[in-house]
């Protein structure tokens, strides 16, 4: 059942804002993971990475669909195909090029750990039944994404000298994009007041503890937080990479917008 009929307008906008933030993260990350299809380091990983990509794009589609219902847009594709980069609300971490396998794993690990804590809290907080139902369903898969990437962090960190160097380098490279995962903005503060979102700044501590433990066990060094931290993606200020990603993702649909493509 559609549970959004009685939401006041201002609240509707907030719900949509939160839905899109979650969905954009997942669509863009899923896109990067999907680039591995057919190019993985072993057949088992071709399967696993495609599986995670499929989950993430599926989560995004479900969240977009709900946003479309609330806003009266035609369907979930509206958000994926007909917005420009200034309207995308994903964190920058997920739009960075896929890099080598170590980079892909380091990113998936950091992002899945973040998603884990975020969803755990969101499920306790969000009152909207339809929204909460989705979160619960997706949470199960996020746990798998987390386990999959964490196991690889151990293997690569404590594997060979080369794998150790590669994954350490990947963590060092991505670290400047972890800051914005936990910085609250005005939209989120208002959403917290209305029980639509959680204080993500409080998630930093458990997240960091988990990352620290994992890296230690993998014989890796936790990168230093005292460095330039990228910010602004949630407000549409992205890296140079997102524009190229969207150009590729959207070109066919936008070239023939009136044709049937579903």
């Amino acid at each position: 059942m559609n549970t959004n009929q009685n939401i006041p307008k201002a609240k509707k906008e907030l719900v949509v804002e939160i839905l899109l933030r979650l969905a954009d993260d997942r669509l863009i990350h899923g896109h990067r993971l999907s680039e591995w299809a057919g190019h993985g380091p072993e057949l088992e990983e071709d399967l696993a990475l495609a599986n995670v990509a499929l989950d993430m794009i599926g989560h995004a589609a479900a969240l977009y669909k709900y946003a479309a219902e609330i806003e009266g847009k035609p369907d979930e594709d509206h958000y994926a195909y007909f917005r420009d980069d200034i309207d995308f609300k994903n964190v920058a971490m997920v739009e960075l090029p896929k890099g080598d396998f170590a980079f892909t794993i380091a990113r998936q690990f950091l992002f899945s750990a973040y998603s884990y804590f975020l969803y755990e809290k969101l499920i306790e907080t969000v009152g909207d039944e339809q929204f909460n139902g989705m979160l619960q369903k997706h949470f199960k898969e996020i746990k798998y994404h987390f386990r999959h990437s964490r196991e690889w962090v151990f293997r690569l960190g404590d594997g060979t000298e080369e794998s150790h160097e590669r994954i350490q380098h990947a963590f060092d490279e991505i670290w400047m994009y972890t800051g914005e995962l936990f910085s609250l903005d005005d939209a989120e503060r208002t959403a917290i007041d209305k029980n639509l979102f959680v204080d993500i700044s409080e998630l930093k501590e458990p997240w960091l503890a988990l990352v620290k433990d994992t890296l230690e066990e993998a014989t890796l060094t936790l990168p230093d937080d005292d460095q330039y931290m990228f910010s602004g993606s949630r407000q549409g200020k992205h890296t140079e990479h997102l524009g190229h990603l969207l150009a590729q993702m959207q070109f066919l649909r936008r070239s023939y917008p009136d044709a049937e493509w579903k």
Partner: protein
Amino acid sequence: MNTQEKLKAFQQRIDKGEKIEPKDWMPERYRKQLIRMMSQHAHSEIVGMLPEGNWITRAPSLKRKMVLLAKVQDEAGHGLYLYSATETLGVKRQNLVEDYLYGKAKYSSIFNYPTLSYADICVIGWLVDGAAIVNQTMLAKSSYGPYARANIRICKEESFHKKQGYEMLAKMASGSPDQQKMAQDAVNRWWWPTLMMFGPPDTESPNSAELIKWRVKSKTNDELRQSFVDRSVMEAQAIGIEIPDPDLKYNEETGHWDFGEIPWDEFWRVIKGDGPMNRERLKARRKAYEEGAWVREAAMEYARKKKLKEDKAS
């Protein structure tokens, strides 16, 4: 029993329709033929991920993106259990893989053609998977147990792929003028290469008789090809797609569709590595394999260290 008697007993089992299992005695030639066929089938699934993977990031709707990603994922799965089934014959996956990347092993010629528009993805589902189903339905009854069972599983998923491709092609064929143009253009490019998927004509197929005698196969290349043509012509008509063959004609006497001459010169060239995409496909697969070497080494080294720790602890 001497070899002659063993051979006779083996043939009797085959004739009775019994399945041969990995630990059963089998002629060396039977084992070799199966390794060749099964690994070729596995390589095809893997190389087949490339032309379709080419459109995942550009699929025109989220639904189509997920359908395509799931399909490519299925292909990795098919590759995985075909390699496992082949390993029951006493070979190693890594050696088989290196055999097609750096040696003489083959994969299906069809994947040496490019996917130029999204309609190609629909046509691959309809025609290429359709052709694969014709072949694999027969192989699901193969005399070698593990191969038969792998094909049963594969057929189920391929049928779904075919249905998805055909449905979307039907939408494009009755869609906007641009979509119709893309749909027909894709069929024009893929039709003849798809007919080549069934292999050389029976007159030039050295392995067929032996494979049929051992019931690895039950139909010849030409028989399979004909049944595919008959079925595809009807399906094309139903969605307003034209088959690019001026000689295509229904034969009242045989009850089959007669078709024009397949460009066999092209087939032999592509098979020998000299087709439009052979070099590129192999290059992409070699790159994935070589760039993945450090990952596979790390996983092995980690497993070794872990086992060492466990051994020490106990």
